[in-house]
């Protein structure tokens, strides 16, 4: 168990895997599992595309 870094809601670690991206059930922020022991999450990076190099 940990807290959502945006709204402080409880975030369950059950069945989560490292790198998994999931929404916070309270605020909807996309969270990413940074570590399992101890369980830690952070807002997932945004994703984008462009034509450059």
């Amino acid at each position, binding site marked *: 168990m940990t807290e959502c870094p945006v709204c402080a809601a409880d975030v369950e670690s059950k069945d989560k895997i*490292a790198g998994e*991206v999931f929404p916070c059930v309270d605020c909807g922020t996309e969270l990413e599992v940074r570590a399992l022991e101890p369980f830690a999450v952070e807002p997932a*990076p945004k994703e984008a595309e*462009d*034509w*450059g*190099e």
Partner: protein
Amino acid sequence: MDEAQLLARLLARHSPSGAEGAAVREFVGIARTLGYRARIDRAGNGVAERGFGRPELLYLGHIDTVEGTRPVRVARGRIHGRGAVDAKGPLACALLAGIRADGPGTLRVVAAVREETDSAGARHLLRGRRPDGVVVGEPSGWDSVTIGYRGDLRVEVVFRARRSHWSSPARTAADTAVDWLARAREVVGARSSGTPFRTLTMKLVGLADDPAADPEEARLLLDLRLPPGLSSEEALALLPAEPGSPTVRTIARLEAVERPRTDPVVRALVSAVRAVGGSPTLFRRGGSSDLNLVVPAWGVPGAAYGPGDSRLDHTDHESVAVDELRRAGSVLERAFVELRARPVVV
């Protein structure tokens, strides 16, 4: 020396692909002054190293630029000059970040040659030691990390036809080439779905004909950008065999690359952007870079990172904010420390 001063020294040495010697010597001289072991390898790359043994982390920048000089100047907090964005800015940041990022193992910062043409510098590195992780030095923006590039396939398609009187019903080689191109566009268009990164595109980048030759000839130069999941071999097979039964010659090919967000190099860069106060974005880009070449060949973690707006690449407006150089330097310093402390062994 700060990032902007170092960059200004690199920009002062004009270095279009194939004529990088003076800039590489400048890079090696600066690196030695900063405490690196530095040398020029057989391909002409500038190589700067700190530390010994594994893990070995490689920052693969490039020091060549496209043709065309631009005055080197600082104005309104931005440094201007050919290569400021693509890609001497990233190289300058990495070289300075490296001396602040102590840790176990080896950090190697390479100023590769000929990235803009045939990647001869990076190809030479493939014959040497395989690192444990790679950051390719391309402009991603200080708070973004590039995790994917489309592949690139360049082909010449040659049509031949018997010479005939232009009043006759026979089709010229140029006629057939135009018909074939329309057919090829249909084939490519049928594969164009999804996001731009996952779309196959084709551009006609050159055409020539010689109606006086016997047989007469028409040539099309095509550049195809390949999404992940479509190899250059598969793309070649898509090209129509008719009309005209042309000869297709491959000029260059580079496969697409896409790294997962869990890649240790991606994660280290993302964490570092956050630590410097940014909100990171993972970019997939339609172009290509040496990341396409080295990460699949070595099978190691990797991503591309560096300051600058890649939309300014190759333009006459190449410039980068001094503040962005400093932030990118801080991001690289933190990422280097994390990657050296937590070996990315594969």
